[in-house]
Structure formats: C-alpha cells, structure tokens
C-alpha cells in the first residue's frame, strides 16, 4: 500500500475530520519515519496547524507538537538539559525535520529526550472528536491517542538533572541510558533500553525489568546497565 492522498489541513478540526474519513489515513509530522516504515494510504500533514509555539513560565514549558527538535535545541528559554537531550536525540537533518509530537507519538525505547521529559513530569495534551485531553507522558502508549492529535507537551523546568548512557559510539543511540532529576530531596529516574518504551524506574525494582534484547544488548546486560547507570545518576545528583 502506498500513499494515495496528501492533505494539509488549516485547522485541528479539519485535521480530525480527515483522520476519521478513513482508517488508512495517518498523521504526518516531520515525515522522517513515515516515508521509510509503514506506508499508509493517505497522510494528514500538520505543518499548517498552529502547533509551533514554545511557551515558558516560571516552572513549566509548553512545547507545541510540531516544534522541530532543532527549535528545542535553539530555544534559550528551555532548560539546558532538555536542549542537550534534544541535540543528542538525532543527527541535524533529522532534528531539522523531526518534531516533538512525532517523537512522543513513536515513543522509541532509545529516545533519551523522551526519558528526559518523563523525569520532568511531562504531560501530553491531545485533541480528538470528544475534545481536549491531558495525560501524563508516563501513561502514554501509542494506542492511547487513538484517532486524536497530540497538540503540545508540557514539562516542568525546575530541579537539576543528569544522564548516563552506554552506546557503541559517542553519537549512537544508547543501548541503555538513565536520566535522573532531583527536585528538593526527590530523585526521579527514567531509563531507555529497559522496556518497549522509555519508562520511569525505581532503583529497587530494576531486577524485575525485562528489557527487549537485540544484537546490541541482551536482556541481562541491559538490566545490569540500568542498575549501573542508575547508581551513577543517583551519585551525581547527590542521592544515596
């Protein structure tokens, strides 16, 4: 099946209508994945929707779903840690095309930015025909949104954060990465490469993880790495 129709709606309502016109129509964000993976029958390109804003207040930032990853890198208003994770997330051609909404929707298990958003208590706002909804990013599953459209992601911007990773090369996707944030006395951890998507983890429950194995890392190795890197992150954040 190849793409037969291309749509570029002007409003979210129009986009939702198109999405419901056929089960075979998918959302096109930056496009870097849809072209290479599953090819739907039609695509709805969100580039004209008003989802390109970054709005920052004292302790939170709200990033529109069509904001490019490079715009996150370039936004002086965002926490340097999040900007750094956005920079690490992809090569520059993909940062210039790829969007935050696309990244969140795909929830790839090696996305360090996704893990970073988790520890910064991110919530996703999405719209479907029933209206607008907000859910914690930690509860997101690709199926959650259904025939809806992610409109923006809101994260907290306070606290300090660090990350540790193991990868084949410095610029490679991580095999395992652990991101940690300390706010007050509380440390929150999230891990990549530990489950089907990046997840929040608790140090005493690492042994129960069943990471997805591939040629870059077996299940046992990944589990061990989550443990090693979590310990490092906690140390760096001054935890115990």
């Amino acid at each position, binding site marked *: 099946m190849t793409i037969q129709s291309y749509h*570029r709606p002007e409003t979210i309502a129009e986009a939702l209508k198109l999405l419901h016109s056929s089960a075979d129509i998918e959302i096109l964000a930056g496009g870097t994945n849809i072209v290479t993976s599953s090819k739907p029958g039609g695509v709805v390109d969100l580039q004209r929707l008003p989802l390109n804003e970054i709005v920052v207040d004292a302790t939170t930032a709200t990033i529109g779903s069509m904001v490019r990853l490079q715009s996150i890198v370039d936004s002086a208003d965002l926490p340097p840690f999040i900007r750094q994770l956005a920079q690490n997330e992809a090569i520059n051609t*993909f940062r210039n*095309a790829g969007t935050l909404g696309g990244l969140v929707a795909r929830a790839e298990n090696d996305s360090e930015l996704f893990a970073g958003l988790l520890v910064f208590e991110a919530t996703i706002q999405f719209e479907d025909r029933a209206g607008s909804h907000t859910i914690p990013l930690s509860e997101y599953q690709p199926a959650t949104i259904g025939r809806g459209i992610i409109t923006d992601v809101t994260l907290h911007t306070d606290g300090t954060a660090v990350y540790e990773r193991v990868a084949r090369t410095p610029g490679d996707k991580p095999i395992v990465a652990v991101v940690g944030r300390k706010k007050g006395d509380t440390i929150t951890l999230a891990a990549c490469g530990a489950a089907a998507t990046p997840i929040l983890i608790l140090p005493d429950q690492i042994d129960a993880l069943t990471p997805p194995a591939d040629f870059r890392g077996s299940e046992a190795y990944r589990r061990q790495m989550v443990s090693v890197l979590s310990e490092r992150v906690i140390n760096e954040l001054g935890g115990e």
Partner: protein
Amino acid sequence: MNIHVTINNEEKTFACRADETLMRVLRREGYFSVRFGSDSGETGAAAILLDGELIAADVMLAAQADGHTIETVEGLSNGLNLHPIQRAFLHYGAIQSGYSTPAMVLAAKSLLAKNPSPSEAEIRDALSGILDRETGYVKPVQAIQAAAALMRGEEPDVPPPNILTPVDFEPGVADDDQGGFDPTPEFDGGSGTVAKTKAPPQPKLTSNIPETSVVGKSETKVDGIKLAKGNPAFVDDIEMRGMLYAKLLTSPHAHARILNIDDSDALALPGVRAVAHYKNVERVLYASGGQSYPNPPPYDQVSFDNKVRHVGDRVAAVAADTLEIAEKALELIKVEYEVLPAVFDETEAIKEGAPVIHDEPDVTDIHDAQHNICHHIEAHVGDVEAGFAAADHVFEHTYHVHQVQQCPIEPHIAISYWDADERLVIRTSTQVPFHVRRMVAPLLGLPVRRIRVIKPRIGGGFGAKQEMLIEDIVGHLTIKTGRPVRLELTRAEEFMSSRTRHPQTIKFKTGVSSDGKLVSQQMVTIANTGAYGTHGLTVQTVSGLRGLSTYNCPNKQFDCKVAYTNIPIPGAYRGYGAPQALFALEVHMDEIAHTLGLDKIEFRRINWVNVGDGLDIAPHLGEGEKETVIDIPIILSSGLNECVELGQQAIDWERRLDPAWRTVPGKPHLRRGLGMAVCMHGTAIPGLDMGGASIKINDDGSFNVLVGATDLGTGSDTVLSQMAAEVLGVPLEDIIIYSSDTDMTPFDTGAYASSTTYISGTAVKKAAEGVREQIKERVGLMLELDDWSGVTLANRRAWAPDGRSVTLEALALHSLHEDQQRQIMHTASYVSFESPPPFAGQFCEVLVDIKTGQVTVEKMVMAVDAGVVINPLTASGQVEGGMVQALGYAHCEEYAYDENGRMINSEFGPYKIYRAHEMPEIETILVQTMEPSGPFGAKAIAEIPKDGVAPALSNAIFDATGVRIREIPFTPERVWQALQSASE
C-alpha cells in the same frame, strides 16, 4: 498532484504523486546533485536546504515541500565561479568521490548563514547528517573552517598535511655511533641479521630525488570542480528515452532449492517488459570476482540458479516501465522453495554432516564440495614443527574477525542499452570496467567486441565494486527487451546482495627464542567465503602473505581452509585479507611481548623486516594458485622505524606509564590506555596488475591522457595527471584526463590491490616520456638542432641546450599543421614484478568504562611510509578515510542475523558508521622514503590505513584494563563480558 516551490530562486511547478519523496522528484527534474544513498535519510546524500535548513530529501514527501523554498548546489555557482564553500572544499582536499559533496556544501552554507564563526563542534554537528565513507571528516571540517574565514574576509588558517622530507636508504651509510646498524645488509634468506641493537636505522635525507614542480604538490583534484558543483557525472545522472527500471527478487531463505518459478502474473501486469530467472536465462558458470584472466576458480555462480544459498541471493529480475510497477511485479512472481538446512559459521560448515552448499553437478574445481571446503591453501618456509621444538617459548592464540560491508554511499548501479551499432553499452559503477567487459560477455552470449563498458564518476567502491555484480542482469534484460535498463541496489540489497568482508577464525602459533627472536610462526585460518567463491582464494592468500611477512622468522607456515556457508557473500574489501591477518598477528605479538615481559615495540623492532630483508613466503602465496612471484621480493625502502617513532611522539606513548593519566578523577569506572600496531601492506599484485596509458598533444599544447585506471574517488586521476604534467613540463591544468571506457582507453586491470599510483602511474610516466621524446625530436626539427637529446621541457616550453625555446603550443601547431605533420602521441603499459611494501605505525588511545564495557576511542595516530608522496592532500585524505573505516571495523560495524540467516540491521543506524560529530582526534603523518622501483619514488597508500586500528584498539583496551579481547568489534556487551569473565 502539483507542487509549487521556489528552487534556487526560480518559481517552479513539479508534477508528482502523493507517495513520492522530494529526492525522487528533484532528480527527475534534473537536480542531479541530490543523490541516492538510501531511502532512510541516514546517508544525507540527498540533503537539500528547505527554507534554509538542511533536511534529507529521501525522507520527505515532495508534497510536504509545496509552498517552500528549496536550495540545491545547482544554484550556488555560475560556470567556473564557485561559491567560497565550494572553493574551500576543492582546495582543502575535502572532496574524494564527491558523491555527497553537494550535501556537505549545503550543510556548510546553512551553518555559516546563521553562524559566521562556528566552533569545530558546531561544524561537526552541521555535518552529522551526512555519512562520509571517504574523508574521515577531517578535511571537510577544515574546508568549512577555511570557508568561514574566507567569507568573513579573513585568511584561512588551516594546517597543511603533516609530511616529512623524503628519506633514502643509501648503501654504506651506516652510522656506527648508532650501534653498528647496517641498513642494507646482504640478504641471507633467513632471519634478520640486522637487529643486533635497539638503535633504529638512520635514514639519510636523500640526495637522489630530483626536484619536481607538479609531483609532490598538494594539487587540487582535476575532477574537483564538477564534483563541487554536483554536475551530472555519476551513473544515474543521465536520462534515456524508454529506459526500463529493473528490480531484483532475492531469496528470503538462507538455503533452498527453487522447485518452480511462475512469472505469468508478473508478466501480465501492464508495464512489465521482462522477467529473467533460471528458466529463461542460459546457465553459464562463472566467478564474479573482478580479476585478471583466467579468473581464479571455482566457477560456482550462474546468472540465475535453481538454488539459493543465502538470504539476498538472486532469484529473478524484473524490467518494467517504472520502479513502482517493477516492485509490484516482484510480489506477483510465484516461487516454490524447498527450504534446506543452512550453516553460517565457517568452523561448523566444514564439519562432517553439515549441509552441502554446492551440490550442483556442473561445478568443478571446488576443493571438497562435500565438506564445503572451497579451497585448501598451504604454504611454508622452513619447518615450523622443528622450529617450535627448538624455541624457548611457544605461544598459541585464536582470533575471530567478523563480517562488515564496504558501504559506498553510492550503491551498485548499472544502466545498459543498445547503441546505434547494435553494441551493448553498460554504464556502471565499477572498479574494473575491463574485467566486467570480458566476464559479462559469455554470460550474455555476446562477443567482447559487442560490449562497451563505461565507468563514469564513482561514488566510492572500497572493493565492493571489484566485482561483476549486476552488469549481467541489466544486460540480460536489455537483450530481452531491446530497451535501456537501469538497476540500482537499495541499501538493504547493498548489504545482503552485494559483497562484504570475509570473516575468519585465525590461530597464530609462534615460537620465540630466549633473546626475543621469532623462530617459528604458523597461521592456521578457516575463512568464510559465504555462498560463493569469488575472491575467496585470493583474499586468503593475501591474508597469509600479510600475516607472515611483517616479521623475520626462519620457519613459517600458512594453512587455510576456505569454507562455503550461507551468509551474504564476502568479496574484496579495501585491505583484502590484511586487516584480518594483522588483527590476529599484531594482537598475538602484543600478547607474546607482555607474557615475556618485553617492551612491546622493541620486541616487534628486533623482529620486523628491514631494508634488504626478503619476503620469503611471497613466492608460495602468489595471486591465488598462480605462482606469479618467482623470486623472493627484497625490501628496498622502509620508513617503519620513523613511523613508529613519530607515532609514539604524536600519541605521547610514555603517558601510559603515568598512573594518574590512566584514570579519571571522579570517575572510578574509567580507565585509559594506549595501544599500537605495526602495519605492512603490498603495492599491486606482482606479475599480474597491468595498466595502460595513452597521451596525445592538442593544438594549444595541452595533452589528453587516456587511462584505463579507475578513479573511484581516490584521486587517482589527479595523481596520474600530476605525473604526466611533471614529465611534460606543464601545469596540471594542461592535462585533460579521461578514465575509463573500454572503447576509448587502454586496458587496465582496475582500481584494486593498491596498484593505481604504482602501476598505472608508471604507465602514464612511460607514455609521457614517449611523448617527450617526440616533442624533443620536433624541437630538433623546428630549431634545426643536430642533437636534440639535451632538450628539456619546463613551463609549457621545450628548451634547447643553447637557451632557445619554443612553446608547446607552437610546437603542437607545427606538428599537427605545418611541417612533416604528425600526431605526437604515445601509448605505454606497465607490469611490475616488485610489490614494494608501504609501512605504518598505528596508535590508539582509548577510554574504557569497566562497568559497562563501553570503549571510547579518544585519538588515533597513523604514521605511514608510502614512499614519495605524489599528492600530500589526496594521500593524507586516503589515510584519514581509511583509518575511520578501520575504526568502524574494529569498534562498531557488524552484521547481525536472526537464526535463519536474515540480516536484521541492513540499514545505517542499526549498522553503525561513525559520523562527523562523534569522531576521535585523528592525526596523519606521511613519512616519505624513496622507493627505487616506484614512479617518482612512490609506493601505495590506499589500503594500509585499514590494517592497524583493530589490533591497536585491542592492545589499548588491554593496556587500559588488563583484559585481552581476541574478537572484533569491541562493542559494549562484548567488552563487558570479557571484563566479567576476567574478574571471575
């Protein structure tokens, strides 16, 4: 649908389908600088600027670009007026094949528009989207730094290549104060008579290298302008009316018999013009490796077989009006398979009871088909068993090297068509146009004279294109349809259906005397040649030669079984058996030195070959089974001592003894270490590699140089032109070089075996010398000289000894038009029975995380003796790019398979190649020696950079952690497992 864009400041409307990528549409509209590297955006070869930002046009729908502004390099320059970024790429040697140069130029343009003074990290990030398999990113980064300076109105500050004054090894110049070392001892046919002390030999600044004016200079590439501009120069950059698109149907099974193929539904699909498979293509046996006649046996392939032997093996090919119809037709071909048991490991494959991969009755010359043993190679000098018995210490270690791919960013592509004379023209991305013509002829049932092979610019090859790989397929389909046919491999096909590097299991056993001298060395290899033989024999003979040549030893033995398995086919890959052998050898030598408590470098030094030593195993390991080397080759030049010393200095070798340096404050899990390896390679295949060149003068005193040599991005056209210019006394711009076209250029074996500078270069030099003689004779006529032997050529003039001169233009006009008219021209060819080895010292610095196994390579230094360097810019580029490929081999590149032999990482990303923003520091040092047998003193440089990184890394990891890893690549879990095992 239509899209409206502003492209290069022009308003344009393009028709496209909803599913078409921007890359496909732009190429169709004639923007050929936007190039195919993959369909995943990972190569960046198709990068363009969209509203000023660099994006990969192969992962953007054309429809997404509607209403936007696009820039390609076609809009950057006008005629010969290049953009400053393009000029910088040209002058700083940032262009090799040039396939991805347009993308890099655009990346720089976008960066500099926003940031006129970028840091190196920012430049590297700007290039992070573009995979480069050629330059190691060193020179593109320098070029962008220079361009930024130029655009700011400043003078660029970029260091020139690190190149040392040539040294020579003159007889009788031994300096006794240095310990009685004699650099040119009489060869005694046995172990070294030379290394009596630790003092290195003392090379002298050479006195016999003539001054040169073009050779030895960092001239810019002669093909650089068209590459910087993205001009249509590659195979796919032409438009042919009525051209059909071919697609391959490949096997989903690792081993299966094809019981039946039914192509009726596919043929019924409108737009499908032909389907080729075993039922309708004649069964003609061949071996696909691009090698000299007669190709080494066995001939174990046919164009289409009724058996498949690896996932990705050919089943059928379709030609259709469009790519989409061809793809749809593949789904309509019904293939009935009988799936057979498969075997993937070389050691398992040769065991009793393993599935027999070549059971077809018509193949001959397989050593033992029943046991999947394609070849059994044995060679020896002396008696290793007696040597082991006499040795004071005997060491034995087993190593394993894995499968990787060459990954040229331009995949294999060929276009064939009938010309007006009813001859079949094949325009193909090949390193071996002449071998392709000869090898494809019997498969197509055409005489050689009815085939013309054209090699335009090539987007890298690295050995993958030393193969007659897809030319038979387009040929069959053009013959079936009468139409032009184009076949381009996808990236996944490039991984699974082209060629790779041979995996090997290598056991080294070495006997050492109490004074640290080698007395016996044995190399026992089981090599994996995959489903077919192709280069299986010759890669392994080279592997044995390289494994047993670096060190003097009176008793040597090589024993190698070449095994068939059901993995995608190994073939030629830059280095050709040497990287495998030298990984094993150089780790083994390190292990011996460590165990004996010897200094790792001194132990090597007292054993390594020096000037005057003979390579005694060479006569027994000629190219394949043909003993082309009769005499023991003697080393006439070696800068190995200097390479190792300079490498030590550059990496600061003594740091490894400082405990404070070996750890990182605050990071107790990190360990630093240094490792080194000695490298020695060959230069061309003695007695076999031959190159031809033809030179003629034009009306204006310029010269056409026609060479069969195949520039695949290496810069050989430039280097060959420099040699011609040097002899003819003209600047480089007066040389117009053309390579290669079987109708137009003299024969050349092709671009492989590090042969072009040495072999084709000598052919060019001889041809130029022939032309020079004719010019001198003409000057004699013009100036009425009785004796013209003293005439010299310089500055575009021919000079009589009495000081009178004529311009070459006047001379050409005189010769072509005025008096005793004659075309001044000369053709020459060259074959050598020498293969002078280049030498190198490779050094690496690593940081190892002992809790995760992650290895970070911090610095690589390679000091190379490649003889006199013809062009320091292109030569250092070869070293930088080769070293980075070697880093991928050692560190992160690998084929991953599922249990059925299907590759699961056949795209970039999962198959990891280093990118610009994650590179270690790289330093290249060119140590020049005067090689008496080479043109202007040159030896080879193309392949030796592949040889030392893997062992140097293993040795550095050992230095850092005390754990020895005898298998590559050094990926985190493997290193972690080794650390775990060691701590248990």
